[in-house]
């Protein structure tokens, strides 16, 4: 062991220090891989943890919760639930969001303070040292005024708010003024959302959120000694129709399921980054072995064992992986914040978005993450270094002392590689025909993996073909490039066994980039076509602040009346929605005015063929139209029946039609407003589609509408054009993360070509010296190496395009459908492919310049004399 460390220090550490640039690139590559992997994991954990922490701190000691089918219920129901007191202390709750003038969101909770203190801990800031903790009576007094609000100290202090300060909050479409009556210490619910929490009296909250006579939930703290499971079942059996009982923690499961598919996809992408690190380690150790064959020979001649040589080079990989993983942990933490942001936008749940982004920065790396980083990086590093390290251990003392065995004169790859490729492609095809497992596109990703490896196995034969073709082409090209072309193709042709692995790695990374770009390009085309087809209203309106995740029921009757009164308004289709649970999964239930939709609007229907007449027939009947994602997730087709929870208990609805929707991947079921109100009670709309009379100027009407509803109600009006722009903007920003991926792929291509060529050049030092003796100019040598770089880039990109296109088909038609329930109209972006190919060629050509400079520095006098 002592000998090992001594040798390691002299033989490996000094070499690493000598070749600092390459060592740093490798370490960075590994840390990037580890970083991306950890970032995704942290982001994942962060969103869920934050959600859990917020839910837990707000839930307090709540054991069970009673909720309505639509997310709220009539407060008169309370009188029919007096028997609940037998189990423990019930406390009715109103929750919602409010927007401060500074733009921040607060979670507002309205409770009956006297009843609620048993469930949750509130501690008010003492105003001075001798003031004691306020009694319940004092607490109550603080809230008798409907304009009273209690903020957290954490929120108030930095904003200069004190007891007695006025604060203006927008809740739904209304702006309201409040007086700060108290400040909560950082404890209990006040801890949720990083202090962005406000407490009100329940009656004041009902008024502020325009939910008079309604309650959102009833929280119950069970008496000590009672079994929650058993009580939950007992309560469920006795509850009036339309009410449900659940445990607060059940929400996590729903959220987890909702984001599982998304994170699964991100993880798959993150694994490319690891692949990159693997490839860099392989290359670095290869270079290390190539350049030091003679030293290895000397060591062997001096009695060093094979296993010691193997251990030395594996140790080099391990050291880089350890440093890389260490740096990667830090990097991952930084990237996690960005990833959380991207995730939340896509998951499009306001609640999680707010919670997660605010707490991402606080999420620390735990022991588990550290173990994971090293647990993944170290074995992979050893795996990647195994081939070159074994090569080093097989160096015979004599052979190395006399100089390395030269490359084979001409290498013709075995046909076996082609057979393996074909078999993998066939396997990929078979896997792509399989169904999702537990809602996760596992076979889809396995198919993608099979296709990628199939592409990778094409590398040796593709390189051979390319070298032959370019050799022939070189002879016919103009004279200035003939010799460079000949030498470059001959060099690469002789190094196929070594270059193939690099080309395979590059091709995989480029293939992924191409596939994802095609998928996103197609998706964008699809969405913009869908927007074109379905956004037919002239003006859209929604409340400035959505008080809940789904933005339900917020536009005041007065505002709607004012809009209807406008002479240019022809019709209004109002949309109401609430979050519901179907078969244990969160979905959106909605209501629209089907007759207005039929007369003015448009939905892009997937099935059946006569969807419009089905829509017409469904007015007044228990029927729903469902989004494609709903249809795919729950396997429901037109004519099938779905059972939904209503205010009067479970009811069956017929699926009238399936429509395309790209706004929500959870699934939407929409019914006509009259049907909705019959089952779920009256509810205010959360958004309006306003159709104007022909010839009306949308911009002018928009301005007029904003004025006519007055300043008390805050509606956001948008014209058709601006909504379209907004949809595309949201789309682009959601997928912005993939540009980073593209950048990574291209950087990797550049770095890969660079390090591969350095390895090749080191291996060919003697040949390069001979060229120097034969009078090759610096320019010719440089051009030769750049041509080699471009050849590597071309073959990689060609395989990349082939596998990328196959992969994109799997992404669009298998993975995407299985994870999001969206059909994408496939669109092959020819211009993009040409442009990316040119970019790759340019980047690889540039990447060839550094190895060329290295080649020009070779001391020709030294190498021509070695055998």
């Amino acid at each position, binding site marked *: 062991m002592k000998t090992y460390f001594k040798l390691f220090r002299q033989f490996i550490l000094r070499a690493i220090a000598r070749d600092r640039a390459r060592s740093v690139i490798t370490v960075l590559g590994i840390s990037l891989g580890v970083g991306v992997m950890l970032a995704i994991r942290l982001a994942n954990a962060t969103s869920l943890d934050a959600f859990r922490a917020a839910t837990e701190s707000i839930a307090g000691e709540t054991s069970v919760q009673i909720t309505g089918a639509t997310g709220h219920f009539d407060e008169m129901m309370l009188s029919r639930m007096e028997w609940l007191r037998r189990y423990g202390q019930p406390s009715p709750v109103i929750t919602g969001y409010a927007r401060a003038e500074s733009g921040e969101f607060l979670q507002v909770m309205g409770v009956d303070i006297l009843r609620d203190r048993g469930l949750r801990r509130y501690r008010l800031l003492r105003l001075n040292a001798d003031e004691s903790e306020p009694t319940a009576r004092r607490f109550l007094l603080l809230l008798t005024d409907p304009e009273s609000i209690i903020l957290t100290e954490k929120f108030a202090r930095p904003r200069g708010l004190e007891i007695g300060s006025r604060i203006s909050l927008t809740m739904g479409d209304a702006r309201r003024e409040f007086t700060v009556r108290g400040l909560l210490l950082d404890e209990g619910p006040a801890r949720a959302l990083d202090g962005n929490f406000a407490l009100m009296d329940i009656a004041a909250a009902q008024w502020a959120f325009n939910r008079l006579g309604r309650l959102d939930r009833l929280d119950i703290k069970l008496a000590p000694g009672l079994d929650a499971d058993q009580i939950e079942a007992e309560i469920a059996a006795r509850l009036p129709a339309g009410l449900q009982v659940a445990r607060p923690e059940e929400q996590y499961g729903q959220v987890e399921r909702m984001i599982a598919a998304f994170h699964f996809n991100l993880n798959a992408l993150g694994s490319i980054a690891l692949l990159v690190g693997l490839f860099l380690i392989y290359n670095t150790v290869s270079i290390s072995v190539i350049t030091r064959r003679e030293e290895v020979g000397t060591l062997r001649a001096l009695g060093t064992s094979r296993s010691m040589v193997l251990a030395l080079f594996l140790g080099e990989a391990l050291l880089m992986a350890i440093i890389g993983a260490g740096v990667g942990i830090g990097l991952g933490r930084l990237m996690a914040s960005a990833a959380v942001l991207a995730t939340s936008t896509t998951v499009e749940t306001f609640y999680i978005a707010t919670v997660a982004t605010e707490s991402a920065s606080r999420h620390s790396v735990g022991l588990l993450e550290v173990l994971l980083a090293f647990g993944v990086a170290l074995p992979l590093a050893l795996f990647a270094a195994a081939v070159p390290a074994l090569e080093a251990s097989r160096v015979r003392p004599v052979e190395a002392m006399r100089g390395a065995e030269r490359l084979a004169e001409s290498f013709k790859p075995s046909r076996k590689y082609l057979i393996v490729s074909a078999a993998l492609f066939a396997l990929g095809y078979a896997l792509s025909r399989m169904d999702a497992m537990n809602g996760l596109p596992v076979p889809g990703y396995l198919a993608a993996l099979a296709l990628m490896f199939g592409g990778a196995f094409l590398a040796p034969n593709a390189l051979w073909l390319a070298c032959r073709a370019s050799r022939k082409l070189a002879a016919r090209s103009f004279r200035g490039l*003939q010799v460079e072309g*000949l030498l470059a193709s001959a060099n690469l042709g002789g190094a196929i066994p070594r270059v193939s692995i690099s080309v395979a790695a590059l091709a995989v990374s480029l293939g992924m980039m191409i596939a994802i770009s095609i998928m996103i390009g197609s998706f964008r085309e699809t969405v913009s076509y869908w927007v074109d087809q379905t956004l037919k209203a002239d003006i859209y309106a929604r409340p400035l602040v959505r008080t809940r995740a789904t933005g339900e029921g917020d536009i005041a009757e007065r505002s709607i009346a004012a809009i209807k009164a406008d002479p240019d308004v022809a019709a209004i289709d109002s949309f109401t929605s609430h979050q519901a649970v179907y078969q244990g999964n969160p979905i959106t239930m909605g209501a629209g005015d089907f007759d207005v939709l039929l007369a003015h609007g448009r939905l892009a229907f997937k099935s059946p063929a006569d969807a419009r007449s089905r829509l017409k027939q469904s007015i007044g009947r228990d029927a729903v139209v469902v989004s494609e994602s709903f249809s795919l997730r729950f396997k429901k087709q037109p004519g099938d029946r779905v059972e939904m929870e209503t205010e009067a208990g479970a009811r069956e609805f017929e699926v009238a039609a399936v429509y395309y929707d790209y706004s929500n991947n959870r699934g939407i079921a929409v019914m006509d407003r009259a049907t909705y109100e019959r089952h779920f009670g009256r509810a205010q709309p959360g958004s309006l589609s306003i159709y104007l009379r022909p010839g009306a100027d949308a911009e002018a009407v928009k301005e007029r509408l904003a004025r006519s509803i007055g300043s008390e109600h805050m509606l956001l009006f948008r014209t058709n054009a601006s909504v379209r722009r907004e949809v595309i903007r949201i789309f682009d920003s959601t997928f912005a993360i993939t540009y980073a991926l593209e950048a990574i792929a291209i950087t990797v291509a550049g770095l890969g070509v660079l390090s591969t060529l350095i390895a090749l050049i080191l291996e060919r030092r003697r040949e390069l010296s001979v060229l120097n003796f034969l*009078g090759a100019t610096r320019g010719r040598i440089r051009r030769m190496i750049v041509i080699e770089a471009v050849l590597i880039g071309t073959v990689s990109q060609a395989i990349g395009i082939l596998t990328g296109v196959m992969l994109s088909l799997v992404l669009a038609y298998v993975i995407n459908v299985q994870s999001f329930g969206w059909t994408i109209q496939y669109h092959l972006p020819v211009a993009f492919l040409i442009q990316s190919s040119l970019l790759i060629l340019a980047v690889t050509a540039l990447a060839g310049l550094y190895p060329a400079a290295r080649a020009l520095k070779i001391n020709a006098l030294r190498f021509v004399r070695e055998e």
Partner: protein
Amino acid sequence: MAALKGVSLSAEAGDFIALMGPSGCGKSTLLHLLGGMDHPTRGSVVLDGVALDSLSQEELARLRRRSVGFVFQFFNLLPTLTVSENVALPLMLDGASAAYGRERASDLLDRVGLGARAAHFPAELSGGEMQRAAVARAIIAEPRLVLADEPTGNLDSENGRQVMNLLADLNRTLGVTIILATHSEEAASYARRVLRLRDGTIERITEHEDVLQTL
């Protein structure tokens, strides 16, 4: 420490000079200086009236392509090029077309007895064949000077003799100046003048009246 000191040597066109001496005496260094691959720290190398130290890197490269041919101990054929391509390389590096290079290489390979091996790769050749191909490569651009560093050092005596005969023949028929570094007395015997070097200085110069007489 200087590899060569106070060495003064002049060669006429058509000369055949052998440099002899123990390893490290400066033979190869002298060849590298003559071929413009290295610069003397003091003094100068003049080829056809041109001082090499006045030339730029590019001019030196052109000089090596057109006026100097190298033959090495370990042949140094490029393993990934065919024999014909290897031989044509200096011409192609000088901008000649591949077709012209092939044609000239074919002539020369016939001359060195490797006409049938043109399409083979170096690894398929014997040591002697490789060295003859290397000689063909050295003279394809019709240089005025061929510098051979231990050309027989890696060959058996029969193949060594063949290569030396080839060099002597080129010297005689084409008038190419040949400067040879060697340990072999037999190889040196082909030269008209033999310079013995020791510790970087010329120890002794021997003149041969007639090369063929010594055989």
